[in-house]
């Protein structure tokens, strides 16, 4: 049904999205918590920075990543010489580009979720002998789980679809950085590639719908487990 090149693109997209989600999740939860719970100098700057990838043309973060992490870049040269790690024009770079672009979508639901939890629940945990980290783990995080899951699914979906930043930062190399959207774009420009492009477009739609349905189901399940849907709990018990 799919050609090897199409399978490649699909597999690569899945790998890139999975890594981008896994790598940004701890930071996303941390920053989301920070923005919801703490007041500090520079909070506005952090907020703006987190939201920025959503409002600039995606090619701009891609350009900046290349400037920073590219072979001649400030950080790129250091990574290359010290760690032997090269991210530009490799799938690892695609992971970074996706993570940066998807980060706002991860942070937003996490932040809202933490904001909805009464801070006094954590204070109650403190006065029962739980350290802030322990209280976070046993009280705040489980209660924020629906938001964290929703954020993770959004992050994953956004990563699957990342185009502009990826293209600018790591290019369009078959089997290395040619993810699903880049493959669609490429097929559109090859004579006779319309059928392949159409197949990948349909596949993208299915994946997006599945992700949204999955997110909805996960969130509902988490909410029910937390007793948020009072009616359901009462009827079930």
């Amino acid at each position, binding site marked *: 049904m799919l050609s090897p090149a199409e399978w490649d693109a699909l597999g690569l997209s899945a790998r890139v999205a999975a890594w981008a989600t896994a790598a940004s999740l701890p930071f996303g939860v941390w920053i989301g918590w920070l923005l919801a719970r703490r007041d500090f100098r520079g909070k506005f700057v952090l907020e703006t920075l987190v939201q920025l990838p959503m409002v600039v043309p995606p090619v701009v973060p891609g350009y900046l990543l290349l400037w920073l992490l590219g072979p001649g870049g400030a950080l790129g040269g250091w990574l290359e010489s010290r760690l032997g790690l090269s991210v530009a024009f490799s799938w690892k770079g695609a992971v970074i580009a996706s993570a940066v672009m998807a980060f706002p979508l991860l942070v937003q639901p996490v932040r809202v979720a933490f904001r909805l939890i*009464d801070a*006094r*629940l954590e*204070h*109650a*945990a*403190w*006065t*029962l*002998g*739980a*350290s*802030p980290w*322990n*209280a976070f783990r*046993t*009280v705040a995080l*489980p*209660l924020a789980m629906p938001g964290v899951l929703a954020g993770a699914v959004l992050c994953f979906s956004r990563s699957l679809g990342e185009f502009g930043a990826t293209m600018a930062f790591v290019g369009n190399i078959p089997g290395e950085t040619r993810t699903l959207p880049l493959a669609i774009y490429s097929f559109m420009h090859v004579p006779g590639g319309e059928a392949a492009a159409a197949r990948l477009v349909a596949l993208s739609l299915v994946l997006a719908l599945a992700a949204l349905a999955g997110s909805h189901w996960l969130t509902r399940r988490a909410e029910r*487990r*937390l*007793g*948020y849907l*009072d009616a359901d*709990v*009462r009827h079930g*018990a």
Partner: protein
Amino acid sequence: MLSFDLEFRRAGFVLQARAEFGAGATGIFGPSGCGKSTLLSLVAGLLRPQRGVLVLDRTTLVDVERRVFVPAWHRHVALVFQDGQLFPHMTVRANLLYGHDRRSPSDRRLQLSQVVELLELGPLLDRRPAQLSGGERQRVALGRALLYSPRLMLLDEPLASLDERLKQQILPFLRRVKDESGIPMLYVSHVAAEVEFIADRVLRMERGRIVGIT
């Protein structure tokens, strides 16, 4: 024994409180906004005073000058909030054991079964907080604090969110907790009758200061 001499300032509000008292229940009574809850938060370790000293049973919990500040989770002082603040994602049983599990076994003075019996919580153990009435919630909150075997129990308007009928149901439980556990209590309320029913002595607060003790 608890003794403190604390000063706490926040935009437009100054609390200056000094007192010393022993075992039993001490009521703190005053109009809303007089700083009662702030005082409890200072004792619990949820707020940091700008100046002063707080000593509980010869342990210095706060001494601003000597830079001593024992954080809330090391004070072994339990706080019962006005609306219970039960953990909504846990069963009543898990709520009750939250502090208990975080106390070393040698320091535990009460077992789950004793507290369940004292507060008549048996039928509620497997429920979620969302499935409890307001009065039941406060009983669980009391039980949770008790099972932590605290050195001091702080109660911040524990009956304020209940109607008159429920208050009358809970008061005897509070009395029982006080008499049978022997844990010293600080009981905050803006209702004089409530404080007098529970407390052995009453501090009166007005505009951030303790203005009398009876």
